[in-house]
């Protein structure tokens, strides 16, 4: 496509619904090629096929959208890994893209490559200010709209939507974590970097000021989880450094935190039914959890040093998270 100038290109992208409402970097062939060169792949490199719409994701189209999002070339391996993840069947991209719930593709990065490319797991990890976080998440969601077709009104009829539908990406904060990385715990090894893609709704911040005992502060978190209702496929729980300090001091493991939340975040079937949050249940006294088992709760340390908070992120319907290893040419798999 040829335009008279930069402004004309912007006008075209806006007029044709090819932006998220913000200006984009025009994807010139040179910029796109720089992405591909960094990753050591050609434009036809296969990232996977989404089976419902029969869309084959290619590195070339991923690179175009990554340029538009403002990515630097070194971010592109993370973008590719995330797009490979959302193409997988369990992510359920098609149905989640059409939901009125307002679903975004969240990319969580775990491993040393996140720090190498300057991602922030500290202050504003889910907010503004960090180019890698902001543009990787934006690239994934621009691709989802521009390439896959999940554009507002046409396919995506989110009732409210939320800011994370423009960009939602952050790393696990390994510097404040007493635990092995998620990459390590998932069996990829200490030196590996992985992305895990989740189909998520908006985050819910929970205030924990005053609680020092992990059981007390996590009970507050469990109460907040009840707002999600039963049958939640997965929940992500990001614990701020201040709150993590209490968890670390008490010697709780990641698994203990998840199991505590799983056990506490539940109500009798009769109460869920009264709220119309579940269908008919013969055993009205059965305690029904928000998530079916503790392994569906991902616990992550992260955020700025000041403030006792947890950010809870619920996931959508029948989608499940998908993990992919980040591959950086010349450095092997990261």
């Amino acid at each position, binding site marked *: *496509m040829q335009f008279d*100038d*930069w402004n004309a290109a912007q006008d075209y992208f806006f007029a044709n619904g090819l932006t998220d409402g913000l200006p984009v970097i025009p994807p010139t062939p040179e910029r*796109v090629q720089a992405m591909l060169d960094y990753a050591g792949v050609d434009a036809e490199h296969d990232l996977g096929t989404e089976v*419902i719409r029969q869309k084959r994701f290619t590195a070339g189209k991923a690179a*175009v959208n990554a340029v538009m999002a403002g990515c630097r070339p070194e971010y592109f391996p993370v973008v590719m890994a995330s797009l490979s993840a959302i193409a997988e069947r369990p992510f*359920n991209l098609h*149905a989640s893209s059409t939901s009125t719930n307002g679903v975004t593709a969240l990319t969580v990065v775990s491993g040393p490559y996140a720090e190498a490319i300057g991602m922030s797991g500290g202050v504003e990890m889910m907010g503004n200010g960090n180019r890698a976080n902001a543009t990787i998440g934006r690239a994934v969601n621009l691709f989802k709209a521009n390439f896959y077709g999940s554009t507002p009104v046409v396919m995506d009829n989110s009732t409210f939507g939320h800011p994370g539908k423009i960009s939602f990406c952050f790393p696990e904060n390994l510097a404040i974590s007493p635990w092995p990385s998620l990459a390590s715990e998932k069996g990829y090894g200490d030196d590996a970097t992985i992305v895990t893609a989740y189909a998520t709704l908006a985050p819910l911040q929970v205030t924990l000021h005053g609680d020092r005992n992990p059981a007390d502060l996590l009970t507050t978190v469990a109460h907040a989880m009840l707002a999600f209702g039963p049958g939640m496929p997965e929940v992500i729980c990001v614990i701020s450094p201040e709150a993590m300090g209490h968890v670390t001091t008490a010697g709780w493991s990641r698994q203990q935190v998840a199991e505590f939340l799983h056990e506490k975040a539940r109500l009798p079937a009769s109460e869920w039914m009264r709220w119309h949050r579940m269908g008919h249940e013969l055993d009205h006294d059965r305690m029904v959890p928000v998530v079916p088992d503790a392994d569906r709760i991902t616990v992550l340390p992260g955020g700025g040093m000041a403030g006792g908070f947890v950010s809870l992120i619920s996931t959508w319907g*029948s989608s499940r998270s998908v993990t992919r290893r980040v591959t950086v040419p010349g450095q092997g798999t990261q």
Partner: protein
Amino acid sequence: MTTQGTPIITLDPRDDTAPALPRLARRPASLDGKVIGLFANNKPHSEDLLRRIAAIIGERYDIAGTVEHNKGGWQWPARIEDLQRTAQSIDVALHATAE
């Protein structure tokens, strides 16, 4: 930064491959004598809606009956084997959602 007056070439972020769209089956000229398959997606009231539509169709045509199938959830496609089995016993299919 040059923003005006300099021509610029960009690539297209959209999928420019030809879509592999399924073709629609031929439409019957009339629903008289036809068995109508009602495919519900398990949304609240989806079966009620389909039955009401079938009842209205039944007032206008001399249909041979209905066959109901609930695919179990609105978040996943129907299983191919279920569709194929149901297709053997119906002439036309009706799908709708509700809330």
